[in-house]
């Protein structure tokens, strides 16, 4: 469910840049303080129920309702500003795909077969990554990895934390080189902003795992600053 905002608000928002493709995260000043709302296509605001969990939890319901009311009314002199994506992430407002239009997470992708001989990487702060059988080199079902192309951009463990939006702040310095000996079922997508990080890296889910011989080697990258 979403609701249409007043045309005066639409006009004001069209004068402002987008936060992301097709949406703006708007900070509206109401007498009780600043509130945030997501506006799609400068026309429709997302209702509270649709907003990400973190957004919901942090918000006061009554204040949210006042924002809804304000946006359905003529704007007049209600102060507002549109947030840039980075600021929205910093404020903890951005967490789910709702704010990453066009770049869906792997969990919502259609399963496909991996490419023949395709290689992947996985990063972890743990040397003994629990999803990989280090004896036979197989990988458990439901394990997240990244494409080799994307993973090779990551030079430090801290960069891996940011690019793959990892909740563990420890640098993910352990890098696992994975090459399934035969094609496996995967889902491909983009890491969504989460855990105070922007994400944006490639993510791939090994739906049914990967067979023995998938792990080629592991090495370590610098932790980074």
């Amino acid at each position, binding site marked *: 469910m979403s609701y249409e905002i007043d045309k005066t608000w639409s006009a004001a928002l069209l004068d402002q840049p987008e936060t992301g493709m097709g949406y703006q995260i708007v900070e509206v000043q109401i007498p009780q303080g600043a509130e945030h709302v997501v506006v799609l296509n400068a026309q429709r605001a997302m209702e509270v129920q649709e907003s990400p969990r973190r957004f919901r939890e942090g918000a006061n319901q009554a204040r949210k309702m006042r924002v809804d009311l304000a946006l359905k009314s003529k704007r007049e002199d209600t102060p507002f500003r549109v947030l840039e994506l980075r600021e929205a992430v910093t404020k903890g407002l951005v967490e789910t795909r709702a704010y990453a239009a066009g770049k869906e997470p792997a969990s919502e992708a259609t399963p496909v077969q991996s490419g023949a001989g395709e290689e992947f990487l996985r990063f972890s*702060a743990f040397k003994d990554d629990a*999803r990989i059988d280090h004896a036979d080199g197989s990988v458990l079902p*439901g394990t*997240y990895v990244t494409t080799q192309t994307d993973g090779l951009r990551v030079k430090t463990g801290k960069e891996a934390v940011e690019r793959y*939006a990892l*909740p563990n702040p420890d640098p993910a310095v352990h890098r696992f080189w994975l090459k399934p000996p035969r094609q496996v079922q995967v889902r491909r997508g983009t890491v969504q902003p989460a855990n105070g990080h922007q994400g944006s890296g490639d993510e791939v889910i090994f739906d049914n795992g990967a067979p023995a011989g998938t792990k080629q080697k592991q090495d370590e990258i610098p932790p980074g600053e």
Partner: protein
Amino acid sequence: MRVTLDSQWMDKLRRLPESGMGYQRVRVKLRDGRVLDDAVVLNAQVLQLADDVGAVVAQDIVDLELEPVKR
């Protein structure tokens, strides 16, 4: 605060899919009746909890289940 899980929970989590690279989002039920939503388990073995949860040890955990994917 971090809690290293007992082997029964590690085994259970290894059989379940990840929520992202190297972690799973879980709902934790504690012996005192509290339910901790959206907690994070790293590498299927380390439960990461907010400091305001208070002291929790591995033996306090009576159930762990994956959080549904957020949409």
